C-alpha cells in the first residue's frame, strides 16, 4: 500500500472517477489552471481539459446551482467551495434545491451532486477561513454530510459520494491536507457513506470525534493508554444522517462518553450524538455525557494566542478524557 497525504487522496479519487466516468466533472473557483487554491485538483485541468475542470465565475450560489442543474440532467458534478466559510451564499441552493429535489418531485428527479468544502482551522485562517460549518447542514433531510479524517476514508468516501445518487456535502479538514498521511490500497475501493468507524478499541471510555480532532483524540488515547486506561475511539465520518447503531453500541460498551469537536458547542454536532445516547441508552451510562468543543464565539480569531485558545489540542482532550475515565 502506498502512503499518501489527505489531499492526495482527494486528488486521486477525483482523477480515478473522472477516468472511469465521463459524466464526472469539476467546477469551482480556481480549480482549473491553478489546480485549486489548496491544489486539490492539481493536474486535472491538464489531463481532462477546460470542459471537465471548469474555472467558474466567482459566485458560489451559481456554482452550486449550475452543478445541481447538471446533476438533475444526469451528470455527476463535483463542485468546490473554495473555503467552507463561503458556502453560506449557496445555502439556499443546497438546502432548498439539491436536498429537496427527489422528495419534492416524488422521486421523479434526483440530484447526484457532490459539494466539496475545505473547513476547519488551526491554519491562521481567522474568522472567515477557519469555520466549521457542518452543524448547519446536519439537519437537512435529503442531504448527506461526510467528514472523513484519514486518507483511506477520504479517497473511499469521495468515490462513494460521487457514486451516490443523492447530494453529498463532502467536508475536508484543511489542516489535515498535508499534515495527515496514511496508507491507501493500490486497487479500487470505496468506503460506505453512513457508517461510523471504531478506529480504536477500548473498554474504559468512548470518545466520538471526526476530522482533525479525531487525530488529536487518538494521540490523547495513546497517552492515556500508558496509564492503563483504554479508550474506544469512534470516527463518526458520516455526520448526517448519523450512524445511530454504531453510536449506541459504542456508548453502551463503555458507559462513559465524550464527544469532541472543533466546532462551537451549543447546537453543534455533539448535541445530536449526545441526544441519541440519552434517548437510547441512558441507563447504560456511568457518567454524564460530556462534550468538549470550541467555545461559543463567532469563529476563531487570527491572533496566535487567540487561535490557540480557541482550538482544542491533544492535551486539552487528554485532560477531559482522564477526568471522565476517573469519574
Amino acid at each position, binding site marked *: 500500500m502506498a502512503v499518501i497525504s489527505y489531499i492526495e487522496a482527494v486528488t486521486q479519487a477525483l482523477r480515478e472517477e473522472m477516468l472511469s466516468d465521463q459524466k464526472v*466533472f469539476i467546477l469551482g473557483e480556481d480549480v482549473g489552471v491553478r489546480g485549486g487554491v489548496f491544489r486539490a485538483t492539481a493536474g486535472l485541468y491538464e489531463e481532462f481539459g477546460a*470542459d*471537465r475542470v*471548469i474555472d*467558474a*465565475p466567482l*459566485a458560489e*450560489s*451559481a456554482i*452550486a*446551482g*449550475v*452543478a*445541481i*442543474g*447538471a*446533476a*438533475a*440532467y*444526469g*451528470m455527476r*458534478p463535483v463542485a468546490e467551495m473554495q473555503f467552507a466559510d463561503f458556502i453560506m*451564499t449557496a445555502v*439556499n*441552493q443546497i438546502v*432548498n*434545491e439539491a436536498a*429537496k*429535489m*427527489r*422528495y*419534492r*418531485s*416524488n*422521486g*421523479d*428527479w*434526483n440530484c447526484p451532486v457532490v459539494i466539496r468544502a475545505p473547513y476547519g482551522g488551526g491554519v491562521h485562517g481567522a474568522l472567515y477561513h477557519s469555520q466549521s460549518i457542518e452543524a448547519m447542514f446536519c439537519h437537512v*433531510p*435529503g442531504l*448527506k454530510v461526510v467528514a472523513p479524517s484519514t486518507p483511506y476514508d477520504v479517497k473511499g468516501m469521495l468515490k462513494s459520494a460521487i457514486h451516490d*445518487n*443523492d447530494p453529498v456535502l463532502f467536508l475536508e479538514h484543511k489542516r489535515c491536507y498535508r499534515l495527515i498521511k496514511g496508507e491507501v490500497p493500490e486497487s479500487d475501493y470505496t468506503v460506505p457513506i453512513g457508517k461510523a468507524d471504531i478506529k480504536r478499541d477500548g473498554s474504559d471510555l468512548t470518545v466520538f470525534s471526526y476530522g482533525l480532532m479525531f487525530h488529536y483524540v487518538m494521540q490523547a488515547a495513546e497517552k492515556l493508554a500508558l496509564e492503563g486506561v483504554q479508550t474506544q475511539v469512534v470516527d463518526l465520518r458520516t455526520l448526517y444522517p448519523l450512524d445511530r447503531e454504531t453510536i449506541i453500541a459504542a456508548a453502551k460498551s463503555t458507559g462513559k462518553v465524550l464527544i469532541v469537536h472543533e466546532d462551537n458547542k451549543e447546537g453543534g454536532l455533539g448535541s445530536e450524538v449526545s441526544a441519541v445516547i440519552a434517548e437510547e441508552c441512558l441507563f447504560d451510562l456511568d457518567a454524564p455525557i460530556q462534550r468538549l468543543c470550541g467555545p461559543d464565539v463567532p469563529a476563531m480569531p487570527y491572533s496566535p494566542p487567540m487561535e490557540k485558545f480557541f482550538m482544542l489540542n491533544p492535551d486539552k482532550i487528554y485532560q477531559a478524557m482522564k477526568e471522565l475515565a476517573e469519574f
Partner: protein
Amino acid sequence: MENKHRALGLSDQQVMDMYYYMMLARRVDERMWLLNRSGKIPFVISCQGQEAAQVGAAFAFDRTKDFVCPYYRDMGVVAVFGMTAKDLLLSAFAKAEDPNSGGRQMPSHFGGKKYRILTGSSPVTTQVPHAVGMALAGRMEGKDLVVYTSFGEGSSNQGDFHEGANFAGVHKLPVIFFCENNKYAISVPLSKQVACESIADRAIGYGFPGVRVDGNDPLEVYRVMKEAVDRARDGLGPTLIEAETYRLVPHSSDDDDRSYRSREEVEEAKKKDPIPLFAQYLKEVGVLTEKKEREMVEKVMDEVNEATVYAEKAPYPSPESTLLHVYEEKQK
C-alpha cells in the same frame, strides 16, 4: 389583415394549436379559482394574462429535445410541453397521481421528467442556475438542446438570476432567460423593483442580447424567441427576453389586489387580454371561424370538466408515503 404567422413559418394548424393551449391554460386556471372559492382546493396561483407570452415562447422550442425550467405562472408553457388538464388538476387537488410531485407541492410547482420539465420549488429564480447547468450538461454530452427558464420581473433582482445569467454568458450556453414582466411582484410595482428602463437592459452586463417584446402577441413572442433559440442552438449563446404582460387577477388566491392597484387599471389591461386579441387575429386571417371556436371551447371545457371530476375523485397519497423519497430507496 396581414398574415403574420405564415411569414414566421407557422402553419394554420400550429397557430390553432397555440390558441388551444392558451385557452386550455386559461380555463384550467379559471377552474382552479372556482374550486378555491368554493373551498375545494386551498391555493391557486395564476397564469391569466400571460398565456400568449408563455405559449408563444414554448412553441419556439423543440419538445422532443429541449428542457424547460419554468416558474409558477407558466401553465401555458408546461401545457405545450405535454402537461394535461388532468395533470394540472391532480396537482391542484394534491392527489397521489399528480405527476409534478405526487401531491407534495403546491399547484404550479411544475416538474415532470417525461415532459422534460425540471422540478421547481418556491424560492424565486433558483431555477435559473439549474437551467444553465442543464444547458452545460447538454453541451458536454454533445446534444444540441436549448433550455428555457423564466421568472418575473421582481425576481430578476435575486442574486441567482444575476449569477446564473453571468455563468451562461461566460460559457455561451444554450439557455434562454425569459422574463415575464407583469408589472407587479405581489403588491410591489415595477417602479419599486427596478430603476432600469427595461429588464432586457440587464443582458448587456452578461454579454448577450436582451430583447423586449409585446407579451400580448404570441406571434411576436414566438418570433423573437425562435430567433434566440436558433442562435442558442447554433452555439451563439444565451438571450434574455422580456415580455411585457399584465397579471389580470390577484397574485394568488391569498392575495387581495384592490389594496395596491385600481380597478380602472385592471379593466384597462383586460382590453389587451391576449386571448380574445389572438382569436380576433385568427379570425381576421381566416383561420378561426365562429364554429371552430365553439368547438374548441367545448373541447377544452370537456377536458377541464373531466379532469376536475377525475382529480377530485382520485385518491390522496397515503399518510405514510410522507416518509418516502428522502433518499434513493435502496433495494433491501
